[in-house]
């Protein structure tokens, strides 16, 4: 399963803080992070807080990762400007909504704008096409962000997450 493999990548890269806004697609990975004594999982009230958290952690010498849903990308636009201006590293693992097979029309506008918005703010966007590619993509994103002081977003496609109805999401 990709969440287990991604969790292994976070541990290998010595990530110590994981900010998250709950999302059905991240359910398993959030649980793995919460159970890991070497990590601190920080519940956020909005995605924007995760950018401040990541910047503050890096000022203090620690690596972090942000888990969020594509709808939250709209909440971080202005503060991504700080990451660019200060060259703070950022790794955001973003589960897609409003993407392939979306059932909620309200998710579609932000989902379709996600990549454009991130790229407009100077964030490097990487999108694995299959579940097998997620962990290697996260590995590469961590190296890119922390070696090159870059903001990197990994978009996890809705097809991979596989939630096809509201009922299915509720039952997760």
């Amino acid at each position, binding site marked *: 399963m990709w969440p287990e493999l991604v969790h292994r990548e976070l541990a290998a890269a010595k990530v*110590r*803080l994981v900010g998250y806004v709950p999302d059905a697609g991240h359910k398993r990975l959030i649980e793995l992070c919460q159970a890991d004594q070497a990590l*601190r999982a*920080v*519940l*956020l*009230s*909005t995605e*924007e*807080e995760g*950018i*401040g*958290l*990541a*910047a*503050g*952690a*890096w*000022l*203090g*010498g*620690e690596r*972090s990762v942000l888990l969020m849903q594509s709808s939250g990308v709209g909440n971080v636009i*202005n*503060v991504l*400007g*700080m990451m660019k*201006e*200060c*060259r*703070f590293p950022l790794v955001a693992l973003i589960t897609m909504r409003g993407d392939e097979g979306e059932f909620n029309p309200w998710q579609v506008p932000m989902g379709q704008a996600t990549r454009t918005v991130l790229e407009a703010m100077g964030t490097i966007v990487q999108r694995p096409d299959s579940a097998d590619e997620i962990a290697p993509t996260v590995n590469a994103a961590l190296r890119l962000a922390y070696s090159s002081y870059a903001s990197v977003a990994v978009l996890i496609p809705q097809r991979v997450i596989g939630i096809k109805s509201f009922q299915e999401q509720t039952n997760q």
Partner: protein
Amino acid sequence: MMNRRSVVKKILENRGELLVIAGLGSTAWDITAAGDSPLNFPMWGAMGQAAMMGLGLALAQPRRRVLVITGDGEMLMGLGALATIGVQQPDNLSVVVIDNERYGETGMQATHTAHGVDLAAVARGCGLKDCPADLSSLRKAIHSQPGPNFAVVKVLAEKVPLVLPPREGALLKARFRRALLGPEADSV
């Protein structure tokens, strides 16, 4: 009521190893007027994120005391941070709001606190701890009271001369990390 510059100067007196984040606007100029330091991170943007930067720093540096000094308008833009800090309970973090009840950089328009919104009550409700009101006790609390601590200091709504820190974000980050982490800041 006191002048904001003398309040911030008093809070930062003999600061020792204190790590300081200041929110966008007047508080960034206030900490600079009190004496610029590489262990200051004055924010020139990202309004609403000062408290969260303080949380990230406090969690990354549990042995150091961390102070966020910010304005009422900046705090109001990121109130959710108080809930997030309340859940994490970092015992080395203090957040002090310098409250002039105005948006000082945009024409001194009234903020919510001018209309009675009580930031200390919000913070208390989120699980942050009250600090003593007088400045010398507040200063001591910032250095030694187990946090997360929160205080509001009401100050005069007046225009004071600009005292600007360096503007370049990458420079502010690099000087802070070098001062805190030493030479290895550049190699990790």
